[in-house]
């Protein structure tokens, strides 16, 4: 319905009435912008899906990318997956500088990278269920969550189920919640080599059941993640983690030393509840903004996790960032599904949700966006946009 309305408006704006065009633009102004293909990797370095992008205080840009080949090896009745996600550093001009954490145990299926105020680099990995903090020199400084030991069990007598190759990805239940052995019963996707699901096992099952006596989707307390998606900090250094695309739909808050403080959220669509929180950001006051992707809204919580507000007029928020400075802005991407080229625009908002304007649409050309998974607001008018299906980072300059 919303899309139909937009199409109609676009049609009117383009073809019929200049007056209507004026009105349509008055509703959500378009922001003029330039874009450059930012990354300049050497020929022997293949960049894949850019799940995460972040810049530090010196203008260095870090990407966390799904690249290379997933290796699945078979051990004692279990499969072990060795993932190919890589954390790469580039300078201000997009020139490749170096790789951080090559071969690291946690880097398996990239989801997010963020840089904190002290220029520590944090990665969030969906498959290893881990958040890893690197210090500015690239040393591992702190880890959260634990990588599952195996990629699933192997059953030699598994029934050969047919079809299902085109089953909707969005409808696929979180494999992490499946009991061990469930991988064998998963309908095949029509052959080829398919990477392994994450581990089942007791921890995942406990998370699926909502832990012990806690609300649905809150998981077990502490850093037991199920496909975590993002990390953010307040001025005191408290850590927020959104968790995630699996069976948890919660926000975890820890102090700067990684000690558990609280969880909040839980699965649902009521105010304060979450459905696949995809991306988070904290403003200067310490309020937390959550891209509540499954509920097509941004929710705002205070620093203690109390619901404050929701903004449901920016499509499906899939990646958000908040710009620095005295007047902060909130950016949110209404990313297209990889199976289509619908939507794709990025909104610029006041922190109270007032839309300032929007720019871009889904596509494969420069200045178009292919399933944006991460935004970095280097400044109010300079953004780095990480795309999944176009395998690139665009540096966006908004024009006044």
């Amino acid at each position, binding site marked *: 319905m919303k899309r139909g309305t937009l199409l109609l408006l676009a049609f009117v704006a383009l073809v019929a009435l200049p007056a209507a065009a004026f009105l349509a633009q008055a509703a959500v102004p378009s922001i003029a912008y330039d874009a450059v293909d930012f990354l300049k990797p050497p020929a022997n370095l293949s960049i*894949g899906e850019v799940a995460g992008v972040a810049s530090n205080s010196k203008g260095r840009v870090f990407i966390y990318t799904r690249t290379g080949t997933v290796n699945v090896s078979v051990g004692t009745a279990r499969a072990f997956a060795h993932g190919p996600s890589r954390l790469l550093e580039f300078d201000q001009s997009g020139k490749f500088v170096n790789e951080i954490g090559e071969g690291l145990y946690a880097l398996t299926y990239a989801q997010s990278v963020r840089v904190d105020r002290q220029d520590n680099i944090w990665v969030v990995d969906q498959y290893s269920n881990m958040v890893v903090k690197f210090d500015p020199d690239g040393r591992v400084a702190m880890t959260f969550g634990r990588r599952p030991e195996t990629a699933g069990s192997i059953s030699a007598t598994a029934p050969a189920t047919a079809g299902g190759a085109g089953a909707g990805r969005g409808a696929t239940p979180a494999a992490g919640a499946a009991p061990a052995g469930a991988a064998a019963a998963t309908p095949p996707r029509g052959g*080829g080599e398919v990477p392994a699901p994450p581990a089942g096992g007791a921890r995942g099952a406990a998370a699926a059941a909502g832990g012990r006596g806690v609300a649905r989707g809150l998981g077990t307390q502490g850093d037991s993640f199920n496909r975590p998606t993002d990390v953010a900090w307040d001025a005191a250094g408290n850590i927020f983690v959104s968790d995630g695309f699996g069976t948890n739909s919660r926000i975890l808050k820890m102090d700067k030393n990684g000690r558990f403080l609280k969880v909040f959220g839980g699965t649902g669509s009521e105010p304060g509840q979450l459905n696949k929180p995809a991306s988070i950001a904290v403003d200067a006051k310490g309020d937390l903004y959550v891209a509540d992707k499954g509920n097509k809204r941004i929710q705002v919580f205070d620093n203690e996790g109390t619901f404050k507000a929701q903004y449901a007029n920016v499509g499906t928020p899939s990646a958000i960032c908040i710009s620095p400075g005295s007047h902060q802005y909130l950016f949110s991407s209404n990313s297209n599904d990889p199976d289509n080229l619908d939507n794709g625009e990025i909104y610029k908002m006041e922190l109270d949700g007032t839309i300032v304007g929007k720019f871009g649409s889904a596509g494969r050309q420069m200045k178009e966006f292919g399933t944006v998974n991460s935004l970095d607001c280097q400044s109010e008018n300079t953004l780095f946009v990480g795309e999944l299906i176009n395998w690139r980072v665009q540096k966006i300059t908004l024009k006044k």
Partner: protein
Amino acid sequence: MKRFIQVCIVIVATAVAAFAQRGQGIKEIPYDMVPNFLKLPPNLYMGEGIGVARDSKGHVYTYTRSGATRLFEFDDKGNFVREIGPGNYAMEMAHAVRVDAQDNIWIVDEGTNMVVKFAPDGRPTLILGRRPDPFDGLPTTAVFARNANPPLPYRFDRPTDIAFDAAGNFFISDGYGNSRVAKYDKNGKFLKTTGSFGNGAGQLNTPHSIQTDAKGNVYVADRGNNRIQVYDNDLNFVRSITGIGAPWAVCITPGTHQYLYSSNSSPESNNSAQMATSGEIYKMELDGTILGKFGKGGKLLGEFSTTHAMDCRNENELIIGEITSWRVQKVILKPGAAK
């Protein structure tokens, strides 16, 4: 058991096709071979010669299932030049490489369901399809499954090949899971899809190789149906070309008078019992009139062991990639010497 039956069906179908071929008196086209055409550096090996294509300078690209699936470039003499996209996220199970009119290099990978366009300098510039994410589940055995659902515009199911028209539109044969051909504009925007699983007019059973002619007509090697399906540029069915065995690989020559080559490749298992009845490559007019054939199944120089890809930028100088002999051969046809 199911697979065994499938294999039997393939064998029987191939045998029937062999006996049903048109015109017993098809003339043999004499040909020479270039021994050891590709020269790899030490410790670099070809695997299955799955994809092969030449660019405008005569450089040869091979997309091979080696230890890992890799894309290599050689010069026109067969000297190794470079590897393109090492560790690329789309490379898992090679199926095709083709080079367009601007010398962009395109790969089709049936292990990741992806198509990637590389600029001549090796940078990926257009990406289509998406590697399944790890949360979609791990089948414990490779099950051959037809996709029962209508194909989605931007998601492939074991795609096989790609072809381009003069406007830069491209066509993807898709594939083992889907049974369709999809058309995109030069920017990768979906335009149209046609085909479903079956053996009726316009239906497909493993569309395995695809080419276009100068007018933009589309030729699809409908391997499982032992025919080439011809469509116009808008993917309306035009006609069927039969009597040439099971077309595994097709190519169309450039120039004012274009020819169509099609390989009746020996079965995948390269069972030596089938070598006598398959492996030959046909030369045709675009309307399907057979002009001649050459080659046979086998492991020796000049024999073909499951031809999987052909390049015919030069009408009488074909580059041929084979699955089971792990090689790419250069064939010099001598049609003037035809008996």
